[in-house]
């Protein structure tokens, strides 16, 4: 499972990071850097929640 990041849409709400701090790394300004995020086993549920809570629709899930 992978999370695709549309970094241009990210506005630094950090909702993804709140749900899955181990998956998402915020840069110093609080935004996600470009680059897809691989979801290790056991983190699928957190990844799903993170994707669903991004108000900018910057994240999509690839099963």
């Amino acid at each position, binding site marked *: 499972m992978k999370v695709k990041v549309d970094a241009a*849409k990210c506005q630094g709400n*950090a909702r993804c990071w709140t749900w899955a701090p181990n998956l998402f790394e915020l840069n110093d300004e609080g935004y996600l850097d470009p680059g897809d995020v691989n979801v290790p086993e056991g983190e699928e549920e957190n990844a799903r929640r993170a994707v669903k809570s991004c108000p900018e629709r910057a994240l999509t899930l690839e099963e």
Partner: protein
Amino acid sequence: MRAAVQPVPDHVPQELVSSFNLFTGPGMEPAPMGDPHAAIETLLAGPPVFFAPGNTRNGEGTWVVVRAEDQRRVLQDGETFSSNRNIFASALGESWPMIPLEIDPPEHSKWRSLLNPLLSPRRVIGLEPIVRERAISLIEAMKSRGTDADVMKDFCLPFAVSIFLQFLGIGSERLEEFVGWATDLLHGTPAQRTEAARTVVSFLDELRDLRRQEPTDDFMSFVTQARIEGESLSDMEVRGMSVLLFIAGLDTVAAALGFDFYYLAQHADQQELLRTDPKRIQLAAEEMLRAFPSVTPVRRATRDVELQGITIRKGDLVACPSMTANRDPAEFPDAGKIVLNREDNRHVAFAYGPHRCLGSHLARREIVIGLEEFLARIPTFRIKPGTAPITHGGFVFGVDNLQLDWSEQEKAQ
């Protein structure tokens, strides 16, 4: 209070002109025991875009964009929908933008790059002990005075103001004075507002000049020392930033906490659930931000643009109430219901797009910590019998005179 309603522009079709506006529409005027969020939610049953005459302080009408998806389009497109309005300055007969709120992309992003690190999620973790300490000391002071209180006056507003003072680096000695200015600025008569605005501006200007000469390690020193593309910031730029930080985090945080207490006072079972299991507070606070948001971002169209088949003309104002987006059934199952353990919650209390609230991470911690400490220290509370809180609509929804009473519980213990 407000300027006369301006005539509806000719290009607005008659059938799209509504009697609603944020100030005098149904449920928007100050009302005892009101529910302005439920009142504005009814817009979701009407046209997705309509025209509201008199929907600003100066009497100008605006389009109102009701649904979340359309609001996202407006707020994510800062080039078509400009926020350069100089509202604060124009009230003083001056002209300077509040930064970054009234700066458009692409210039906007350099200001956010400068300011974001100051209020990033990580930085906010460092501010937590002080936020908690301020919450505890205000709640304990309130508790020592009796078993009822106006929590807006005794907790919500001074709490928000004292965190701002902390952020500014001036400690709490001047708290009362600042709370007075904030109250006049946000709720005073037009004359009081102008007077308070001048006082705040000159206070911040003085602090700026002081820190330019002798920097310490606070916010004002940071911005006076900062460089953008090699240039230090002008006096007006520092003013535009510090004024915005002052006004952006006061009423909004106070209103969020106020509506939360108002709701919990009327739902003793939910209140008990959060009190006995404080781990629930974080999700509950998000749901209450969804259900009771306060802000309506407003933009001006920089070109003719179509929205839901309606032509918005260059120069028209467009209002995007977070209150309707947050109860849009296309976004949230059971949108009209308050479900304190709701998980998938893409609410827009902090807006969308480039201007998304810079202080959201701090605001969230203030709200959660405020609720945690209040529920831990104050037993079951209700609205004080014989009193009625006053709710109001407008550009920042709010609740005033929220008298809570916890005497029954004290006796029982």
